[in-house]
């Protein structure tokens, strides 16, 4: 009797998953722990890093009925594959059943590019474009900050990444998580985990990365420039702006339609004043639910076999370069704009906010401005290039999609 119980007990251990744990998984537990520590203890983009890190932890456990991992050529792993049971029916093939774990289904929101545009819907509903409308010149600062993306693309290409991979790495410099995920899913899905983690980590590190660059590229007199107070922008003007951006941008770069379309739909819901319930849903429930699903789905791509490779380190390094060059591009362009007489002076510190990372980059401009002159308030001025950066990154992503999708 006792022997039978012991035999059953030992045979039960064969059903557990301890023997499936690999050293790569164990290392990734440490990476997940670090990300969770940064998010929980230091508040680094916790809304995204917590779901990403938890998803990564699940990806590095021998789970069942959660997600399917299929090896791809080149050592990468495809996550979230659904198995379709097909049945011939005349000339058609009918789906008899679909098999997969929980995240095989949820990850389709990333693979089919549904989640990033839904995040943009919420971002649009949360964003006030008033400062940008009041000072439309700042749109150019949002464009200039994309220099980081372009230069990093060239750098990544030079060290051996393919053009679609280089575009996905360069877009980290746009400091716009949903756009980075959107582009990478389409062009280089094998790099999704590394690109997403680099993008969100650097967005969280904006207050550390940007100030030294901003100080190095500006003189004290530059930092003391006080900008003219922004004019009041009416509701009608904001509505016209949303429609203008939608029409002009989609006509110019149709590949950016899902991002720009949803961004401006969210903003129209916010500004029109008659869809309060929809606006609140976009600002809260929709963006919150999608953030959880998007974050965990991205984390699920970070299996040790894919993540613990030399290219991941290169991607993280190149991401920092992209951020730095983007910041410098914005600041230098603002200085350049001050050469043109009669247009009013721009404090170059707001140029750095062109790298999206809304609203953290604008807050950094405010803090740096106040360091030079405590009475100078740059926050609202910096919100102009900040939201322009979101549009600029989406346009650039559209350019890459249109030219690199095969």
């Amino acid at each position: 009797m006792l022997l039978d119980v012991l035999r059953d007990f030992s045979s039960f251990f064969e059903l557990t998953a301890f023997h499936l744990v690999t050293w790569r998984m164990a290392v990734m537990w440490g990476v997940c722990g670090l990300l969770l520590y940064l998010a929980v203890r230091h508040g680094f983009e916790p809304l995204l890093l917590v779901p990403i890190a938890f998803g990564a932890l699940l990806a590095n456990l021998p789970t069942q009925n959660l997600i399917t991992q299929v090896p791809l050529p080149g050592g990468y792993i495809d996550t979230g594959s659904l198995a379709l049971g097909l049945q011939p029916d005349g000339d058609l093939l009918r789906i008899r059943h679909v098999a997969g774990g929980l995240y095989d289904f949820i990850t389709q929101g990333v693979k089919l590019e549904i989640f990033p545009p839904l995040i943009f819907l919420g971002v649009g509903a949360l964003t006030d474009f008033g400062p940008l409308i009041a000072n439309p010149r700042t749109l150019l600062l949002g464009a200039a900050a994309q220099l980081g993306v372009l230069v990093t693309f060239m750098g990544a290409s030079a060290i051996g990444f393919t053009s679609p991979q280089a575009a996905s790495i360069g877009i980290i410099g746009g400091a716009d998580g949903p756009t980075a995920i959107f582009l990478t899913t389409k062009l280089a899905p094998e790099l999704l985990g590394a690109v997403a983690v680099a993008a969100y980590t650097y967005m969280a590190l904006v207050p550390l990365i940007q100030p030294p660059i901003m100080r190095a590229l500006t003189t004290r007199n530059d930092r003391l420039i006080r900008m003219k107070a922004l004019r009041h922008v009416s509701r009608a003007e904001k509505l016209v702006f949303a429609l203008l951006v939608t029409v002009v941008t989609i006509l110019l770069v149709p590949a950016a339609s899902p991002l720009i379309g949803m961004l401006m739909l969210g903003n129209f819901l916010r500004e029109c004043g008659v869809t309060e319930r929809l606006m609140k849903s976009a600002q809260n429930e929709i963006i919150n639910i999608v953030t959880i699903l998007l974050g965990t789905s991205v984390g699920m791509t970070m299996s040790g076999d894919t993540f613990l490779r030399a290219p991941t380190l290169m991607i993280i390094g190149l991401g920092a370069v992209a951020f730095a060059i983007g910041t410098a591009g914005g600041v230098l362009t603002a200085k350049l704009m001050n050469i043109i007489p009669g247009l009013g002076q721009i404090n170059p510190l707001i140029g750095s906010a062109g790298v999206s990372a809304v609203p953290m980059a604008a807050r950094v401009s405010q803090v740096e401005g106040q360091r030079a002159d405590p009475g100078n308030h740059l926050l609202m001025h910096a919100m102009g290039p900040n939201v322009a950066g979101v549009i600029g990154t989406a346009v650039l992503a559209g350019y890459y999609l249109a030219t690199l999708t095969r």
Partner: protein
Amino acid sequence: MTALASAFPVHPGWMQNLQYQLTGFLVVIFALGALALLVWLAGKIFSAAGEIKNKTAPVPPPTVPTGEIPAPVLAAISAAVSVALEGRHFVIYDVAPSVHGAWSAEGRRAIYRSHRLR
């Protein structure tokens, strides 16, 4: 765009890559520049419409306080100064209307102080 898409290789040469990135930068500058121009034009139209509207409704002249400051107002100012100086001794020699948006600047300062920035 179609020619560009079919021509751009997976591993481009340096010059080819530079040309591709410059084209991309031009696309972004053109898109955002066109938007800036259109938004500026729309702003001019809205401002002009607002001025016409304002001309039809005359603005009442601003009221300027004259004479001595009432005792309750002086008491309120003294109390505010005492709170701001956290109980330190002080003497008020003069009271004058605020200029250059001092009140709004103080309000903004208070709001920004409430934000925790890393």
